[in-house]
């Protein structure tokens, strides 16, 4: 849905022909079959799992199907800090990614128009990190930011960090990792909208005596809204469910665990499948609601 925002919003000039709906349905069939098989079936299975109850006299990890709504109450009361934290971190990462990406995308898409070679080169640089697994890149950051690393020892020498301070295992490290990992997802949609920005609108703005800031606020920003919405969605949704950056094995510590880590622990270690499933459903539902409100508020429903 978010991908619709990549295309320019052109109003359809003609009504689509309505007669051959049977053929349209037939053409949709593979897509529908795919969704039923790989989206709907797992979703139903997940929903049923989330309602399971422990088997009477059962061993660890043995559950039976039931309508145990209590699972949802239990995970909410136990893990509400992780739920709040997940969305907090995802929000912070999205805002930071936007702050970094917007000038970058503006430069590539607008300022570098005169030099197509530079433009393509910079785009390649934005995408280049994808050539290396993001697990490896995150591990590399962990090394770069470790206590005995050049970066941290220098900061300590300059008294910018206290002698006992450290970076890995803190919320800053996790938000840093999330921001870093999702910047390309923010930059690319922003670039696609800014690249088509008609500069004559900006000229018109300054001809009408608007200062550069007003031109940006009244012209550039509204025109790049589709890119902002697409970019924030592409960043926020996966960031909220991310469990790599916050994992204790990567940039996180015991007090930075997000929902994904809680789901992992419940599924793999505690074998509490209903709790893991209930948390997954809550995560999905919460994202759906938050994204719905966001899209409604930003007045871009027609873009989706």
């Amino acid at each position: 849905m978010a991908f619709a925002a990549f295309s320019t919003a052109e109003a359809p000039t003609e009504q689509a022909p309505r007669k051959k709906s049977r053929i349209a349905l037939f053409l949709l069939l593979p897509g529908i079959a795919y969704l039923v098989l790989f989206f709907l079936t797992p979703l139903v299975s997940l929903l049923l799992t989330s309602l399971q109850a422990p088997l009477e006299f059962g061993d660890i990890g043995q559950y039976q199907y039931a309508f145990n709504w209590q699972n949802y109450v239990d995970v909410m009361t136990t893990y509400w800090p992780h739920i709040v934290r997940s969305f907090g971190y995802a929000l912070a990462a999205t805002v930071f990614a936007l702050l970094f990406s917007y000038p970058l995308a503006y430069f590539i898409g607008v300022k570098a128009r005169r030099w197509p070679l530079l433009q393509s080169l910079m785009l390649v640089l934005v995408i280049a990190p994808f050539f290396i697994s993001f697990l490896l890149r995150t591990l590399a950051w962990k090394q770069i930011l470790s206590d005995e690393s050049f970066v941290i020892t220098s900061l300590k020498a300059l008294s910018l960090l206290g002698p006992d301070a450290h970076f890995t295992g803190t919320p800053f490290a996790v938000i840093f990792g999330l921001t870093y990992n999702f910047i390309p997802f923010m930059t690319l949609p922003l670039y696609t909208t800014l690249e088509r920005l008609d500069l004559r609108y900006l000229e018109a703005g300054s001809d009408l005596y608007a200062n550069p800031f007003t031109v940006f606020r009244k012209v550039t920003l509204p025109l790049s809204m589709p890119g902002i919405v697409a970019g924030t969605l592409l960043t926020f949704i996966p960031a909220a469910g991310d469990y790599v950056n916050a994992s204790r094995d990567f940039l996180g510590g015991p007090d930075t665990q997000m929902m994904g880590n809680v789901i992992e622990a419940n599924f793999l270690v505690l074998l509490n499948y209903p709790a893991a499933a209930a948390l997954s459903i809550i995560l999905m539902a919460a994202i759906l609601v938050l994204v719905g409100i966001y899209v409604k508020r930003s007045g871009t429903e027609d873009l989706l």
Partner: protein
Amino acid sequence: MIRSLIARARASQMSRRTMLAGAGAGASALALAACSTGGGVAKPTPAADESATDKTLNWANWAAYIDEDDSGNYPTLQAFEEQTGIKVNYEVAVDDNNTYYGKVKDQLALGQDIGADTVCLTDWMIARWIRFGYAQELNHDNIPNLANLTPALQDPDFDKGRQFSLPWQGGFAGICWNKEAFPDGLASVEDLWSPELKGRVGVLSEMRDTMGLIMLQNGVDIAGDWGDEEYSAAIDVLTEQVESGQVRNIKGNAYLEDLKSGDTLAAICWSGDITVINAEAGDKWEFAIPEAGGTLWNDNFLVPVGSTRKANAEALMNYYYEPEVAAEVAAWVNYITPVVGAKEAAAAIDPELAENQLIFPDEETLSKAHIFRSLSGAEEQKYQAEFQSILLGA
């Protein structure tokens, strides 16, 4: 594939009924369904053995857990293939007990082949497999070398008389520290909580090792009869150290990265690893079993319930219980071998190796190492939940 789907559907009769109930048949069907299960879950039936005609074997094991030469071959395994004519497909398929279990548990419950005819997993996980009927009973007649099994490991509480499992390699969990930062070394778990180590201590995410060491420090015999009270006391210690920021992080295998990068200067760690990172990253670390004692764990061979090559697997186990072969493996992997006579065989190759207490521990060293007692399903659930709540923070 269709067959396995049908098998799954059969195994989950429950789910079909419940779905019906969900679709509108009402709660009565659900109540009926709930009654029909009774307690517990039926154990799967072991597959028939076809080893006589099928001379292949799939072995799933952990990384860096068998002797390997420079070109990536496994010399002892090649010798086994020549000797027996059994083609072994050795796969490094296990990187964590829990993730491996998560991957194969559904097939195991149905008694299906999991793609491995023998797999090496840690004591507590083995205990679960045996309890659930996921392991095949071994035929000791096919493993005459069983006589070489070290006496201390012959009768573990999870597998009396070793009917289902045989140790592959073992190790200690103890404490280690950076020698450059702490030339005097550490002696006990209590030393990890000293103020100068604040924020630079790592502990393992393996509950039995971290909690085991803390309980030992508290004076509890972890192999013996202990309960909630002793466990809670140890949980309190760990909670305090994590919340005060004394403990920097709680990790699995990745704790080695923290030691190497210097994020942690001391840690609860596994014996074999320290030999390896000293070789890799300069001779900087030292391992010791704490004064109050360390934990001893083993990874054990077992034959999954769906395997049709049990006799081949037994031949493999028998082969690795030859002292000479065991010595060759131990010299490479740096873990403790369960085979009596391997020490003497190793002394013939390299006398210094045979004296290494972390590979060939003597009685005195072994007396300091304790095996965490087996937990029932309910205990496991409860104790793991308490431990995980520290790992996940609030």
